[in-house]
């Protein structure tokens, strides 16, 4: 590899937003992934009294060399999803097909997982706790090399120095301790460690949330450079919508363990159809608007996120949804494809203030507008949620499946 020259070249390069390659094959296909954490009673016999449904039926694809953003409130299950993919937890159900051989990360044993750990790596949120304070930088970055015997023992140090240079750190600093670095530098060390195994998929769990804004840009640019150079696919977990917009051509919005809206950048940021996505987007502070003094309409969500131990019936968002109706309590909205690369899980999908007054999903589910069973209608068969996008989708204007 010729990191040195290419890195210098890339420094001069501007960092435009990542673009979507619609024809890239999926490197990771997640289908109906579920993670329930048992809740046990106190006392001597600890009975299982319920489950925290942290992730409940999530499906998506991460394209090769691309990046999917996963956004949502705290506690919506996005970090859990990342930890499931790196198998820090064993999922309750579902599948995660990875790589060319479609190995299912959800069911393979820890022993079979070990070679795959080279391919799936993770960048952690908190650079102050993700580096062992008792190890030198050389040990930290060298650990993956040693564990997987990537390079001969006597070459480890030179490879570590190479990696430090790739992430823009002084390679001479390999024998320093993490406490001697700033937050941004520490995050670079974390990235170098994840990069050491040359993974195909990188799970970035809020990689810049703990950094201050000027450093965020540097780290994001670094990750973009690395993505381009090493063709790494990113699952980018964040709650900063602006950074996700820059980094991810595709975005999935999660709420209480489920994906409520998923689509390419355009569909989400300028054509959001789910009231939750719209509320999230309207909460982003806007500098331009502050300068003009113009007031923008803001959707304020009231109340707390419901408990994932006992989520609301039907649509999980209905307790805080401004447009919820009776059907929302009775039936869970299917994640319906409404555009070429756009899916939304809502009975009343539409742009802000243009939500339809009758549930468009009623006919598909075989119920009437109030959600009661309708003997005249028959449920549509093709509502099962598949990862990825189909060639045909439900057209909101004609209210039927078809091609645009």
């Amino acid at each position: 590899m010729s990191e040195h020259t290419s890195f210098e070249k890339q420094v001069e390069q501007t960092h435009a937003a990542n673009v979507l390659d619609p024809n890239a094959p999926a490197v990771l296909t997640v289908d109906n992934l579920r993670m329930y954490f048992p809740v046990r009673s106190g006392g001597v016999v600890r009975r299982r009294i319920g489950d925290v449904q942290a992730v409940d039926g999530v499906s998506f694809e991460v394209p090769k060399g691309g990046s999917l953003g996963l956004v949502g409130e705290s506690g919506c299950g996005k970090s859990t999803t990342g930890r499931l993919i790196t198998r820090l937890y064993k999922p309750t159900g579902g599948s995660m097909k990875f790589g060319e051989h479609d190995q299912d990360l959800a069911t393979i044993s820890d022993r079979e997982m070990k070679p795959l750990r080279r391919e799936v790596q993770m960048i952690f949120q908190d650079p102050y706790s993700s580096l062992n304070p008792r190890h030198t930088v050389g040990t930290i970055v060298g650990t993956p090399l040693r564990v997987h015997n990537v390079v001969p023992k006597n070459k480890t140090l030179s490879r570590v120095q190479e990696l430090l240079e790739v992430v823009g750190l002084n390679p001479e600093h390999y024998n320093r301790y993490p406490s001697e670095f700033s937050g941004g530098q520490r995050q670079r060390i974390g990235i170098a460690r994840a990069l050491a195994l040359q993974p195909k998929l990188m799970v970035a769990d809020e990689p810049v949330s703990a950094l201050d804004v000027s450093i965020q840009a540097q780290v994001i640019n670094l990750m973009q450079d690395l993505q381009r150079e090493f063709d790494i696919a990113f699952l980018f977990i964040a709650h900063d919508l602006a950074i996700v917009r820059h980094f991810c051509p595709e975005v999935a919005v999660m709420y209480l363990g489920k994906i409520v809206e998923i689509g390419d950048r355009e569909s989400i940021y300028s054509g959001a159809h789910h009231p939750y996505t719209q509320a999230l987007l309207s909460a982003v502070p806007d500098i331009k608007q502050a300068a003009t003094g113009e007031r923008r309409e803001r959707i304020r969500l009231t109340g707390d996120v419901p408990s994932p131990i006992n989520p609301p019936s039907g649509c999980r968002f209905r307790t805080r949804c401004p447009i919820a109706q009776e059907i929302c309590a009775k039936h869970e909205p299917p994640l319906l494809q409404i555009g070429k690369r756009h899916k939304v899980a809502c009975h009343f999908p539409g742009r802000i203030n243009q939500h339809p007054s009758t549930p468009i999903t009623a006919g598909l589910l075989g119920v009437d507008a109030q959600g009661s069973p309708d003997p005249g209608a028959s449920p549509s068969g093709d509502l099962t949620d598949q990862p990825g996008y189909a060639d045909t989708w439900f057209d909101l204007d004609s209210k039927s499946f078809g091609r645009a």
Partner: protein
Amino acid sequence: MSSGLSVDELDGPEGGGEAERMDDATPKTSQVAGRSPTRIALSRLAKDKVAVVCAGILLLLVLLAVMAPFICDWLNIYPDQKDPDAPTPSEMLETGGIPSFGPPNYPFTWDHPLGIEPASGRDNLALLLYGLRTSLTVAVAATVVSVVVGVTLGLLAGYAKGVVDAVLSFVIDFFLSFPFILGALALAPIITSRFGGDQDTLRRAELYSLIGILVLFGWMGLARLIRGQVLSLREREFVQAAQVIGVPTWQILFKELLPNLVAPIVVAVSLSVPAYVAAEAGLSYLGIGLTESPSLGKTVDSATVWFQRYPLYLWAPVVTIMIMVIALNLVGDSIRDAFDPKTRR
């Protein structure tokens, strides 16, 4: 605290752009070695006057204990009469078991600086040196074994969670609630009767069983401490990072977690050595520790009845134990302070 790094060297690359960082990388050839938290603690310890003085005293005591045979040879004194060169009790004692040289009845003599033991005629200095030797051997051996046992079980219990943790925690609580003196009292006669025949075997059996008893009732505190620390450490992201990399579990335990537990372990060690010294002396004083080997506690026991007529006989071992335990405790306190940046005096 001067860490050997200048501030601008740390912040420099971060403040500037990436181009500047590249400049920074090339001309720099001098290597600045990082300082581990342990080394920072050691340098802090070196500045603590109490710690330095106490460490000096301890070093002296350890040297005395290690060199005991040479010192005794050089002074021509003997801890027991088995040695063919040793003077017989009749040469050393008058009627009634009173020493014929030195205190209490005669003036100080360099032949026996601390006098002669009444009734047996052995030299008190030799007894003290060999007692010190026994004391430190027992305390160090018991500490090492209980640290190994405590740390291993604590790491396992904290990291394994679930059934393993529940079982280990129960065992820890069980031994913590078991009365130590009662256990020692029950075991001592069993060992004496089992190995009673041969004096030499009995001596070794006593030594091992004493260490064994001290370990049996001494490992739980550290195990519990380590378990608690591991429970909080295992949730830190660097442990998860190691799991994501695929580091084997034993390496996570001993290479990732253990280095972060150095401070509590060092503190526990430095405070448990004096506790074991005192426990050994106490048990020997009660007659359930060592009966065959020289021991400070045993000397204290036999000296109490002579205190009125021969105070030096009692003072020598008592003052030695006191100095050793106080020095060990103060060093332990200083080590704990040195490892904890929040409690700087």
